[in-house]
């Protein structure tokens, strides 16, 4: 589409149809924010580091006292690092969104040409950026402290990472919709929802540990396949591609449901006039 050229003195020339530029604008906005605040940067690193060190020592102790765990080397630290990808991925997405609520900027964005799906795309990219700032240094700490090399998982790590990120985005997208519709009253979900998944996704133990009636629920969650896959890789040295494909299929459903939920909640927010009142 051609540019709209305005006639008056000191008028801006506008270009149309630049979705990538709008997504870039939002990424730039979050990058400016991260760059301007060292506590925000520190926050990305310190908790994953504390988690990894704590569980690393637990594993060190158990491995020296139990034959099975000696064979299961790295499963705890591996679980901690992969859990952090899932948890931090969702949190990175949700915090970027919350930054707009805290700064009362949602109205500006919703009344700008930024489309909801472009907004979501920018939040997805920023969740990867935020996660990388936190997880990459911690993964090197795991090598230095406990000799656990996450990158040694090779292609499997790519499959694990992709599936965990897809789940974290699906949950983050839905939570953002809840925040638009219900305001800051829904903020706690952003911080805590992943902990509901934690016992069911069998992060630190096999699915068979759960009662039989609860196991189908666990298998309905994509992260379960990732953690089972990780344990199989570390204990049996076998990569189960089928588990990853199952997770991918479930993630496709979850992502579609999360996006549909977001759009429905956004439409509801427009009906109820809550986009202007993003406080409590």
């Amino acid at each position, binding site marked *: 589409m051609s540019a709209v050229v305005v006639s008056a003195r000191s008028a801006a020339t506008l270009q149309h149809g630049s979705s990538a530029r709008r997504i870039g604008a939002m990424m730039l906005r979050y990058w400016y924010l991260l760059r301007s605040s060292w506590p925000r940067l520190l926050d990305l690193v310190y908790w994953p580091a504390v988690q990894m060190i704590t569980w690393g020592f637990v594993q060190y102790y158990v491995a020296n006292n139990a034959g099975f765990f000696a064979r299961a080397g790295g499963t705890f630290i591996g679980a901690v690092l992969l859990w952090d990808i899932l948890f931090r991925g969702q949190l990175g997405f949700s915090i970027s969104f919350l930054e707009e609520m805290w700064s009362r*900027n949602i109205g500006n964005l919703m009344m700008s040409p930024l489309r909801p799906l472009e907004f979501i795309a920018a939040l997805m990219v920023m969740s990867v950026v935020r996660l990388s700032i936190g997880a990459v240094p911690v993964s090197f700490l795991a090598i230095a402290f406990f000799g656990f090399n996450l990158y040694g998982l090779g292609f499997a790590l790519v499959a694990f990472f992709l599936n965990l990120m897809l789940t974290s985005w699906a949950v983050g997208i839905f939570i953002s919709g809840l925040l638009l519709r219900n305001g800051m009253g829904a903020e706690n979900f952003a911080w805590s929802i992943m902990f509901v998944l934690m016992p069911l996704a069998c992060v630190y133990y096999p699915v068979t540990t759960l009662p039989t009636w609860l196991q189908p629920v666990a298998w309905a969650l994509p992260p379960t396949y990732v953690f089972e896959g990780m344990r199989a890789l570390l204990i049996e040295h076998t990569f189960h591609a089928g588990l990853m494909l199952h997770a991918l299929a479930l993630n496709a459903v979850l992502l579609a449901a999360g996006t549909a939920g977001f759009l429905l909640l956004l439409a509801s927010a427009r009906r109820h006039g809550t986009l202007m009142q993003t406080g409590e």
Partner: protein
Amino acid sequence: MHTPPAAIAVERLVKVYKNIPAVDGISFTLAPGSITGLLGGNGAGKTTTIATIMGLITPTSGRVTVLGAEMPRERYRVLQRMNFESPYVEVPMRLTVRQNMTVFGMLYGVENLKARIAELGRELDLTALLDRPTGKLSAGQKTRVSLAKALINSPDVLLLDEPTASLDPDTADWVRAHLQRYCRERHATVLLASHNMAEVERLCERVIIMKRGGIEDDDTPAKLLARYARRTLEEVFIDVARGTVEAREVAQ
């Protein structure tokens, strides 16, 4: 004679929240290049009307079109040519003025953005503040930043909700003068919600007075003053808000 299409057309607009009508069947059209004041007490429906025009609120019934696009259904056709300023929203405080202008300029698809930011900096006396965090500025300076954000895309339609609230008289006067100049040069359509009657008298060629979600009166400031036999719009506003005129007419 050919009548130019309305910049904003509101037809029988109704917005109901939980059985309470916030806006109750209002209709008006704004001609391109006009400056119109939207007056009314708290809860009269001004902000709901403006938010509906921006596409932030879906009407319960009725129709709103802006530059020929139906809101909110076709909003992406025209949002690039609109902008707004409201006390309900702020630009991010941790970002510098230049960073905020860059982000919003990109969102609105402004070309030659650096030049545009420099130009707005000069026009709004923000040049020296461009690299300071927005949150560290005074209230008056922040208002000028909000105005710069509202003008970044040189909008054809500008919606302003209390643009000079909490400003000292000098800064408020400066903002009004700038808005007036912008509208004259750009031939932009402005809808201005305000509680400042002097501001409305100075800027607006037409005034719409809302009360309890409906339009109570709609005319030029001069005709309103004549009709209510008052010297200021503030007196007219009080008459309408308290229903004094109706009471007097009933008594007569």
